[in-house]
């Protein structure tokens, strides 16, 4: 027999018991061909192209789920940053493009579509300004559109005008979606070193260096890693790392299979596999649970950064060998409201925003799905974004902020965003003001790339 019964049962129980799935098959679509000075005409072209290129995405994923017995949880779409199209608009709004993307997603049965964004790490074009000014309106007048703006990079430094403007946008988006606890902010990411091939929402977009259309795959699997660790006791660090590498290899290989098959069936090139462990609010599908199984009393206690660094590195080492092309963000996600274990650690007083920031130095992707008090000032939000961007800039890694200043809520309150976005406690932020610093204007210069201490 080609496989042993034990091997077959291992694969089956990974899905049935340990919540293994393919988190996303994402189709990136270049929409630069849709350019038009009339925003409404451009929107029509965008709708037509997205629907045409991605028509088979959901049906293909359904066939593959059945064929291999592995759930593909999300089918998603990303497009070229819309700011590039907005440069041509006579009228200074990009909202009709967001509406077109939303309609296309609904037509195709896609839950989120991303790329309503801009890259402003060095400065703003007219299109960038149009796009950024449109974000609150776009996120509040659509259901499925996600937005991201890149405000810094290791090569360019940090555009602090961009940081401050995005802090204002975060605040405005929260206020505009007050009736939904600031939900619009859950669809808005502020990046440093954004990647061009990230398949994960909300920060996904198709980079300018990418092909006409591309398929990228995001694996998941915290539950599978957790189950493996539950069965293993008294392992040294080397043995622990080996175990995680093996699990990561297997889940990535499955992603590779799905990516290749989807690519063949749709006639769209296979881009990359993103080797990220992505938690969900489901019990057991938690990065925090893995860290605690590694021996931490609660995530956030001293030792957490080291444990996360080791986990993240082992996942990559195992996954890289399994993937023809690894890419995207590739690291352990530590969102707060999307991970029940992280929420428990905050409620227990073990994890605060400062420790969370430290953890983002060693994993992807940043302060993700962090609910903060609704009265947090624009200055403080800008300070949080700037800190996170600085970590990314200096360490040559992607960092991001998806902050939700929940209107009317204070630290310790519990906010529920529903579904995959989860629910969790509002986190306390620092009380002192960085106002003079964050309002200086201009850019933080690009860092020196040698003398790395």
């Amino acid at each position: 027999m080609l496989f042993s019964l034990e091997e077959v049962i291992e694969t089956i129980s990974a899905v049935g018991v340990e919540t293994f799935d393919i988190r996303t098959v994402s189709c990136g679509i270049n929409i630069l061909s849709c350019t038009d000075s009339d925003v409404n005409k451009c929107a029509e072209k965008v709708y037509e192209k997205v629907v045409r290129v991605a028509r088979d995405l959901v049906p293909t994923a359904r066939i593959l789920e059945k064929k291999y017995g592995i759930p593909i949880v999300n089918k998603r779409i990303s497009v070229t940053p819309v700011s590039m199209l907005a440069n041509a608009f006579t009228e200074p709004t990009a909202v009709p493009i967001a509406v077109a993307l939303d309609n296309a997603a609904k037509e195709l049965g896609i839950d989120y579509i991303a790329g309503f964004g801009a890259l402003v790490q060095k400065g703003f074009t007219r299109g960038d300004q149009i796009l950024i000014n449109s974000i609150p309106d776009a996120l509040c007048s659509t259901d499925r559109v996600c937005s991201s703006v890149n405000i810094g990079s290791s090569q360019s430094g940090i555009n602090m005008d961009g940081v401050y403007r995005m802090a204002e946008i975060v605040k405005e988006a929260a206020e505009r979606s007050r009736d939904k606890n600031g939900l619009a902010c859950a669809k808005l990411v502020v990046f440093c070193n954004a990647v061009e091939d990230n398949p994960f929402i909300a920060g996904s977009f198709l980079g300018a260096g990418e092909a006409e259309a591309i398929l990228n795959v995001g694996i998941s699997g915290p539950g599978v890693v957790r189950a493996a660790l539950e069965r293993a006791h008294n392992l040294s660090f080397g043995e622990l790392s080996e175990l995680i590498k093996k699990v990561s290899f297997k889940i990535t290989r499955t992603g590779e299979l799905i990516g290749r098959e989807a690519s063949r069936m749709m006639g769209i090139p296979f881009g990359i596999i993103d080797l990220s462990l992505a938690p969900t609010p489901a019990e057991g599908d938690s990065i925090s649970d893995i860290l605690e199984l590694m021996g931490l009393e609660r995530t956030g206690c001293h030792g957490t950064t080291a444990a996360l660094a080791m986990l993240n590195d082992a996942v990559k080492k195992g996954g890289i060998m399994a993937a023809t092309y690894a890419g995207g963000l590739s690291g352990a996600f530590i969102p707060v409201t999307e991970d029940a274990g992280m929420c428990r650690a905050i409620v227990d007083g073990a994890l605060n925003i400062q420790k969370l920031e430290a953890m983002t130095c060693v994993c992807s992707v940043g302060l993700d799905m962090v609910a903060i008090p609704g009265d947090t000032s624009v200055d403080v939000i800008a300070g949080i974004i700037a800190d996170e961007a600085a970590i990314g800039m200096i360490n040559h890694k992607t960092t991001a902020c998806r902050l939700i200043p929940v209107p009317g809520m204070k630290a310790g309150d519990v906010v529920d965003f529903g579904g995959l976005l989860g629910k969790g406690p509002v986190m306390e932020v620092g009380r002192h003001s960085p106002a003079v610093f964050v309002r200086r204007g201009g850019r933080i210069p690009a860092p020196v790339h040698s003398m790395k201490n």
Partner: protein
Amino acid sequence: MNNNKEQVVITVLGANKPGILAGITRTIADSNVNVEDVSQKIMQDLFALMMMTDFSSANCSFEDFQSRMQAMGDQLQVKVFIQHEDVFRYQHRL
């Protein structure tokens, strides 16, 4: 390997009782799916059966076959999994 083959792994898990193998193989035969290898174990009281089959000569679609087998599984009160062999090959073989 014969490239025309379409190898599908059938796994059956459930509480052991008479008639499971008979019921499962009857449905497979009725669908004209060819069994190439069988491995069966009783683990404690759990009935575990795995079959490597060739689906290329089947008289129904893959989806219909899954439904037929699912119905038989429900009747026998066992869990039936029908998966293309590639998923196991990718995970367990280099």
